[in-house]
């Protein structure tokens, strides 16, 4: 029974050496990077925009109770039913309960990472419902029976041939490997599902407190259709997604699009405030909003890391992370990957089981630098490491660091270390590169420099 940590190591080892995978990701990211940088440059003051966004999210999250209550009051006033789900199980039960009540058979979904988080699709399928993911990338990975590879680009790792292959196998319909033709196949299949579906389930990017609305950003129109055609609509949203005012979207929508996909604005940015209102002739008759906690309040209680709840799920940190780019999204083995995933997963799913994600980083800081809401991501990785070591120290590492202290603080001992190091290096030649080599982790792929004939300290001593 392998732990998340051993799974991570195995997959990381395999994918780090997979040059084809590296090239696929490099190519995908390359196009995005050019567009993203253009969008950032178009801002009159990108850095000030980041600060403004960070402060808005600070206000939203640090007064979360007030904003959530306002949100619920306003959206309920328009006939929406709001449900509070403390755990993943509660959220699943609530949603299954709605499906049962509505005698649903076919459910169409637009992208919701929270639904991945609570394994909603599995629960619905096990209960006998037909569930169809409508976002093209999600649709593809659903057919392939694998999780999304990236929170914004679920099928980033696949070539057109692999997509053609799964369309052929699962749909019996794949005229060619041409992206446009493949997209049209999905369009045809899904169009029918939108029309058949009894229930549409969405996620949300933002929950606007002031006006009681959910804001959904997308390019394909699948969320628009999911919210327009079925008779019942359900939105599952994390409690941290709150924004204070409607006009805050004027800042957040372009920032989300710039960093998420390198666009000025995504194709559809839509705010939903309730079911079909008086005078409206379409839209769902019933609208349910499920507010999800699932350990977010635990993260909220950690004042040091509370800002990780500011995340707008743009995926920009994944895109700049050299670890993500080399091991890929699936290696993380959990819903949220990349730097944000490495920060929050140990806090949401258990520090001891998931701390390895916080360790699997060189702390380069590219994530923090790029985050549009200025989350101190790489410093949170350090904090997770500190917290993990306190909770469950590794006895030999602790001992090694403790033993190092006198060596590194007493000149006589350091001098001894230097001399013994030189001797050790001579002997090292016999085991270098083999399994007996204590430095094997390094020497497997890299040479080690020799300790100098005369170290700096030795030279400095000769001067005085």
């Amino acid at each position, binding site marked *: 029974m392998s732990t998340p940590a051993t799974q991570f190591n195995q997959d990381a080892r395999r994918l780090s050496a997979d040059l084809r995978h590296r090239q696929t990701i490099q190519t995908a990211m390359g196009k995005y990077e050019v567009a993203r940088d253009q969008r950032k440059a178009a801002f009159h003051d990108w850095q000030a925009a980041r600060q403004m966004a960070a402060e808005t999210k600070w206000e939203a*999250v640090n007064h979360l109770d007030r904003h959530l209550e306002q949100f619920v009051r306003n959206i309920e006033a328009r006939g929406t039913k709001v449900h509070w789900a403390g755990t993943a199980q509660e959220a699943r039960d609530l949603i299954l309960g709605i499906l049962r009540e509505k005698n649903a058979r076919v459910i169409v979904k637009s992208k919701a990472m929270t639904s991945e988080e609570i394994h909603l699709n599995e629960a619905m399928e096990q209960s006998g419902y037909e569930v169809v993911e409508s976002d093209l990338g999600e649709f593809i990975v659903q057919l392939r029976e694998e999780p999304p590879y990236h929170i914004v680009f679920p099928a980033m790792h696949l070539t057109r041939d692999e997509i053609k292959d799964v369309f052929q196998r699962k749909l019996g319909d794949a005229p060619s490997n041409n992206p446009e033709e493949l997209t049209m196949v999905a369009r045809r299949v899904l169009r029918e599902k939108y029309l058949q579906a009894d229930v549409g389930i969405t996620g949300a990017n933002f929950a606007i407190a002031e006006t009681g609305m959910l804001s959904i950003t997308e390019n*394909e129109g699948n969320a628009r259709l999911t919210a327009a055609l079925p008779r019942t609509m359900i939105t599952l949203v994390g409690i941290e997604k709150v924004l204070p005012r409607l006009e805050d979207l*004027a800042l957040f929508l372009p920032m989300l699009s710039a960093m998420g996909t390198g666009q*000025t604005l995504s194709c559809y*940015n839509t705010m939903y405030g309730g079911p079909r209102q008086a005078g409206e002739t379409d839209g769902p008759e019933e609208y349910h909003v499920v507010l999800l906690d699932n350990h977010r309040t635990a993260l909220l209680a950690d004042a040091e890391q509370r800002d990780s709840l500011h995340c707008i799920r743009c995926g920009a940190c994944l895109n700049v992370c050299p670890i993500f780019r080399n091991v890929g999204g699936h290696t993380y083995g959990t819903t949220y990957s990349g730097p944000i995933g490495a920060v929050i997963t140990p806090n949401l799913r258990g520090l001891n089981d998931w701390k390895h994600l916080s360790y699997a980083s060189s702390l380069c800081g590219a994530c923090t630098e790029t985050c549009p809401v200025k989350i101190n991501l790489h410093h949170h990785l350090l904090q997770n490491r500190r917290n993990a070591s306190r909770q469950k120290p590794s006895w030999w590492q602790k001992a090694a660091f403790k033993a190092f202290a006198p060596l590194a603080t007493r000149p006589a001992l350091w001098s001894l270390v230097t001399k013994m190091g030189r001797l050790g290096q001579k002997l090292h030649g016999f085991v270098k590169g083999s399994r007996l080599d204590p430095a094997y982790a390094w020497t497997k792929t890299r040479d080690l420099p020799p300790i100098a004939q005369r170290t700096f300290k030795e030279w400095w001593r000769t001067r005085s």
Partner: protein
Amino acid sequence: MVEDALVSERDNMLVRIREALSVAAPLPGQDHGTAREMPVLSSIADQRRVLPAVGQSFDEQLALFRANAAELCGEFRLFNDLDALVAELKGLCAAEGWQRLASHGGELTGAACQALGLPVLLTDQAFDKRELAACDVGITDCDALVAQTGSVLVTSRSAGGRALSVLPPHHVVLARREQLVPDLPAAFALLKAKYGGGYPSMISFITGPSRTGDIERILVLGAHGPKKLTILCL
């Protein structure tokens, strides 16, 4: 009782939140707490200081909208009078072979549909969604055109509901040039002023025809929503 359980989870969650927030978190943009004022939410002026710049004059804004629309692969045409607009619409109709229109009883849509003289599904009354899906084009009014982003702002009240502007394969927007607003802050201000008393259940910023890049990051139009977006502006 299920209702009680639901209410109590709400209470539980709010209690957890309040307890969690009893310790203050550092303000953003500073690592080692030097005392600072609490953040103030941004005004329109604040937002304009950071967002992409938009020219001050109407002509500059119009040019920006036109450029954005083109880059998004949407069509944007400006007309001096309704007759010219209708002529364009007729031309489109013929070129694309429309047989059934979908529309709503909007300000400009009425004249447009009448001129085309084709069967029209009006979404102002209850309608069959499969019939809507079979229409060749959805013709709607809009609330605004946003220069900064090249977006069309629609709501379920101003544009014939939720499905009309997204289900048919071609979305034609009829607008007046006075509806052009410079940027997103202006668009949200417009929404508040127009609907503040009672918002429609759906508000949408449409920025170009539907698209996806999910297959090898190659741009494909018409993923689920309309493959074509045409904005005809008086």
